[in-house]
């Protein structure tokens, strides 16, 4: 009985792939607007040249390339779409279909990853030209666990944002909550610096929050920085479970509360 879910997944991915390809030009700009890590790459690279920070310039370059890659593959925007659906009442027809609306969003995101791939390749190539000393060959261990945590961290980020999206049933601007969350995400996820450079206390606290696992953790695994793998996986699964439970409760209660246009 596994064939139905597979069939549904394949159909949705091919539909959304076709849809995303139409907006190729727009996609280039989305990829480029993820240049935030590159700014910090420049700063840290320069800093490492003038003193000993525990990282060499090449290691910084590698780290921020890892951050860039992880960010490209884990971009999530489901809350903006979901909020629109709730506020404009577009959720109503979707509820009639024999499939949970979340899958449409989920596979839309997955399909977009595929369209993004060529642009990401291009930028990585450019990066290797600029920083040839940063090129590295990942070990099989890094490839396997790095990819796995990358997929997990996309799922975790999607799940958390989709949980915030549920609040759209009650408040008109659920995205404001997401933007506030994003502030913490920016500065605690390791986007501005590897966590090893954080003060001891901040790092200890940060490692219990979901933020580092959305960027720092998969990026470190990909480039071979030492991390506590079992503990990291446990924390990811733990936060994922919490988000999932809250999400399902809010979904049930929210649907009863839902009175969008036409419902």
């Amino acid at each position, binding site marked *: 009985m596994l064939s139905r879910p597979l069939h549904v997944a394949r159909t949705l991915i091919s539909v959304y792939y076709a849809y995303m390809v139409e907006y190729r030009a727009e996609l280039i700009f989305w990829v480029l607007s993820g240049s*935030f890590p590159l700014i910090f790459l420049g700063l840290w*690279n320069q800093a490492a040249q003038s003193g000993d920070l525990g990282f060499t310039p090449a290691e910084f370059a590698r780290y921020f390339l890892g951050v860039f890659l992880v960010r490209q593959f884990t971009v999530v925007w489901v809350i903006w779409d979901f909020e629109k659906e709730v506020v404009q009442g577009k959720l109503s027809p979707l509820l009639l279909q024999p499939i949970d609306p979340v899958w449409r969003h989920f596979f839309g995101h997955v399909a977009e990853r595929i369209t993004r791939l060529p642009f990401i390749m291009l930028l990585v190539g450019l990066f290797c030209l600029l920083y040839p000393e940063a090129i590295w060959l990942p070990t099989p261990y890094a490839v396997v666990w790095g990819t796995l945590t990358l997929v997990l961290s996309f799922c975790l980020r999607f799940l958390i944002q989709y949980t915030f999206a549920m609040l759209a049933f009650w408040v008109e601007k659920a995205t404001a909550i997401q933007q506030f969350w994003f502030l913490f995400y920016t500065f605690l996820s390791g986007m501005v610096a590897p966590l090893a450079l954080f003060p001891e206390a901040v790092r200890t606290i940060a490692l219990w929050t979901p933020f580092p696992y959305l960027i720092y953790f998969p990026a470190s695994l990909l480039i071979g920085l030492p991390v506590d793998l079992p503990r990291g996986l446990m924390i990811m699964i733990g936060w994922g479970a919490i988000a999932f439970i809250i999400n399902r409760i809010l979904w049930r209660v929210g649907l009863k509360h839902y009175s969008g246009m036409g419902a």
Partner: protein
Amino acid sequence: MKLARYARVLKLFWQVSIAAELEYRINFIVAVVSSLGGLAGSLFGLFLFYRTDYSFPGWSWSEALLVLGIFTILQGVSATFLSPNLNKIVGYVQEGTLDFVLLKPISSQFWLSTHTVSPWGLPDLVFGSIIVLYAGGQIGLEALDYLALFPPLALGIASLYSLWFILGATSIWFVKIYNVTEVLRSLLEAGRFPIEGYPAIYRIFFTFIVPVAFLTTVPAQTMIGRSNPIWLLGSALLAAVLFQASKWFWGFALRFYTSASS
């Protein structure tokens, strides 16, 4: 005569948009909290560099703080005046409502650039000013030094506006270009830190291609009294050229506007 008319129109625009925004007063609390959170994050980011012995070449902690303060003020300015207006140009083109703007008996660039003002950038303006005052106190700046901030800051804002408007105007051709301004915004993030902190290629890029250096570093240097007059002159020249270019480009772009239904 013409100027007085524009001033009167501007006053009406802003009265209406402030009245409309005040309907959502809860937003103000959200804006204050977000602004505080963003500031804490920025300070943390800067602190990460200075907690080791490293400092951006030629910039002490307080001086780098000054740059951050000016950056926060700029964020406030763009949230109040620039983004609520310029990010909407795409929408007018998409829906064809640009027709109504073009029919009005005032400059369409003026209408598009000024008709909304959003008070939610205010917290950033206030907190940014506090940081500038605090950092200035640490460095030992005089009242006159604070005044010296305004000319380069105003020139920087003029350049930023023109660049943003030009990008917005490209939506005449590329209807779905919403993200171009997003790219500009992400590049502007570089202004949080003094330009001397970047490698040479970055410095060239952020001076000549996306003039981030003129937005925060040059005003800060002018305040500390370390600025070469060449930089101020460059800033003035850049603002004048970009502003003129934005006017020319808008006129050019309008020739290709075909409205939504035709």
